[in-house]
């Protein structure tokens, strides 16, 4: 009887201890941690449930048998770029549990993993994926890291890609993997395939230092150009007064398209001013460690014109986004009164610290100096 009691007591004590050990053990007890390998594979840890943007533009076949990289299936995405929800972009997250946008506890502790690898190919080649990413889900239970790779132009044969995770806090990742594509970069849509997505603990991975970028370095070259490095995502002030057309073909300075802004100056948000930052990545208000080292640049040039001439832009600038990961400096010109014809402007960057730039370009103006609003065009925005 005594022996039985001791046995039961041991069981009672050991069960919670075992459960605790199961809960606390990081997923990195193994050397790899699978996001997806095969339809219904037991080692898959995330579900491609988090569709974003123009979700009506996405079709998924998670058991495509058309030339998988390994096994018998891969995942096929077809992005139509029809802007079903009017956004011009779409994407998908692999989540844990399914449909978890940071509203419930889930995810995994991936501490110790140093990279995420995956294989990808386009149906034709040339499909542009704006970014692939790990983490970045916000909400009540936010991911502890966000790491991005892109833009990437896919080839028509399988190719392996790696997202470097060295030094990142991976203690809670509910958004294991994701991709985003835009209609600007894929006006005819894109069909692409993904396979063998997994985290790996590779001791040979080195921290990814920021590389000094070669010049010229474009903020905006042309619609959907792979050279575009920043996104016009940082809308400020009366953002409801601004219309953005990133693929205007009326009279571009160079290439097929330019950017057209229509600023109505109606004071939609009551600020009486408006402006837009080109950021890396999109919507990065210095909350994400990203951006570029543009130390080789001596000036930022761009071409601009007003629809009528006489439109006044209070400031054109670069840098100056402040937050946890602030731009290392800022520089600007203005006020600038635009001409009707294309005119090139330059922002002098001598003496500036350009080692960390997340706000690649910006303009701001206000209703006082443009009471009737302003329509203006920008093109060929680049660091030189």
């Amino acid at each position: 009887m005594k022996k039985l009691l001791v046995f039961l007591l041991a069981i009672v004590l050991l069960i919670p201890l075992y459960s605790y050990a199961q809960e606390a053990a990081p997923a990195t007890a193994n050397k790899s941690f699978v996001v997806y390998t095969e339809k219904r594979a037991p080692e898959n840890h995330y579900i491609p449930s988090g569709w974003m943007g123009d979700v009506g533009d996405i079709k998924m076949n998670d058991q495509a048998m058309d030339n998988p990289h390994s096994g018998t299936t891969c995942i096929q995405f077809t992005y139509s770029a029809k802007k079903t929800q009017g956004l011009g972009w779409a994407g998908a997250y692999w989540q844990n549990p399914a449909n978890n946008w940071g509203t419930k506890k889930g995810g995994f502790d991936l501490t110790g993993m140093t990279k995420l690898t995956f294989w990808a190919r386009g149906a034709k080649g040339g499909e542009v994926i704006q970014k692939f990413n790990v983490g970045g889900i916000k909400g009540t239970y936010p991911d502890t890291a966000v790491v991005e790779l892109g833009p990437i132009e896919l080839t028509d044969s399988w190719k392996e890609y790696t997202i470097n995770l060295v030094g990142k806090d991976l203690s809670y990742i509910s958004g294991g993997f994701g991709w985003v594509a835009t209609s600007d970069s894929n006006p005819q849509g894109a069909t692409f395939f993904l396979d063998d997505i997994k985290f790996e603990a590779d001791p040979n991975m080195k921290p990814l230092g920021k590389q000094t970028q070669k010049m010229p370095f474009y903020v905006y070259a042309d619609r959907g150009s792979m050279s575009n490095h920043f996104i016009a995502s940082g809308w400020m002030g009366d953002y409801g007064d601004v219309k953005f057309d990133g693929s205007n073909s009326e009279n571009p300075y160079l290439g097929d398209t330019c950017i057209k802004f229509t600023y109505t100056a109606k004071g939609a948000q009551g600020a009486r001013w408006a402006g837009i930052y080109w950021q890396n990545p999109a919507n990065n208000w210095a909350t994400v460690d990203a951006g570029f080292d543009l130390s080789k640049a001596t000036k930022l040039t761009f071409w601009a014109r007003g629809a009528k001439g006489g439109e006044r832009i209070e400031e054109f600038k670069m840098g100056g986004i402040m937050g946890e990961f602030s731009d290392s400096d800022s520089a600007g010109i203005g006020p600038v009164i635009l001409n009707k014809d294309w005119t090139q402007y330059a922002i002098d960057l001598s003496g500036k610290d350009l080692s960390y730039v997340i706000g690649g370009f910006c303009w701001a103006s206000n209703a006082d100096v443009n009471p009737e609003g302003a329509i203006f065009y920008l093109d060929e925005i680049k660091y030189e």
Partner: protein
Amino acid sequence: MSLLGTLLRGFKNRPLLTWFSAALILSLFFLFLANKGNPKVYIQKLRNGHYRLMVQQRPYLVKGVCYSPIPIGKNHEYDWWSDPSKPWLVDGELMQKMGINTIRLYQAHENAQAVRTVIRDLYQRYGIRTILGHWLGFWEYPCPLYADKSFQERIKKEILEMVSLYKDEPGLLLWILGNENNYTCMGQLNPWPSEEVDKEADPAKQRMLRAKIYYSFVNDIARDIHRIDKNHPVALGNGELVGLDIASTVCPDIDLVACIIYRGKTFGNIFKYLKATFDKPILLSEFGADAYDAYLQKEDQNMQAFFLESQWRHIYENTANNKKGAGNCIGGTMFEWNDEWWKHNESDPSTWDIHDTGSNWSNGSYYFDIQVKDNKNMNEEWFGLVALSQDLENGLNKRSPRKAYYVVREFWKNSTAGAKKQ
């Protein structure tokens, strides 16, 4: 017997000791000659291009604080200089314990005797020196008329009177002309008219012309101050580094710049950029962080302490002889010593005895609470290193040092600026 005779005789009997004594005497003599012409406070440019502030022949790092001891229930018009409870005595003792060696006063009160008393008390009792400033008419209605000669003359007269009154105070450190008056040239604050400028159609050129007028005016004042006071440097007060490229062309008589910078963890690239555009030493004359988390709606002393320690680290990195930085920073005066309860809603006296948690401005550099609605995260009434309480002690609102007080104190104790611990 003459000194020379004694020396000669000594040479004969005790050559080594006497030669040593002679060398010592001669060294002291030359040192005396070298220092005789030096003012009490001056800027020294080192061979490596770095700058330091010298006070009585010794390097001096400004470990300062902006000082405006307005009690709860009063606003900036309150005459604290004549307060019988003498707040500067209580504060001076606390400051001394923290390691503060300088206060910054934005402008002296019209009661000269009261001002002298404050400067003397702080210096004689606690060794704390005073930076005296002048607003240069920044707050005048409808705007400061910097292009108007009679306005210029009036302001200059006021300042020269101030200099004459206090230049011989042993506790005086330096003068600061203006605060962020340069923004009036950019059309951002209190814009002022000028017939010459208003003719110019290009708004960018307008700014440049205004800046030239303004900075030339400040330089005139600096030049005249130097004529009557050779013992104290003159600083150009400036908001950020805006306009200093213009100042560099018209301000030869300015000794240093005193900049207001609110950039969160560090001051960014300002030290190097200043070196490249206007090679003068810099005093961070207003910087800091508030101690209220606007997002979580509660006091957060850790947040303030975190920013202030990080800012002081960046200051130290940029002092003379520190290889990490530009070597042009002579210290800073934190904003501010105590909370001021009138500031959030200054036009409504009924709020002056309420510690308002509202905010009127946003700054993403202070990112802990930037998620608050409309991003208004800067809580103007919570910048104090010491909090005030409505409880009175010796006729004054009780002072309670915040965590930043202790963190900065320890940082100063344990850190060295440039080559020497100060």
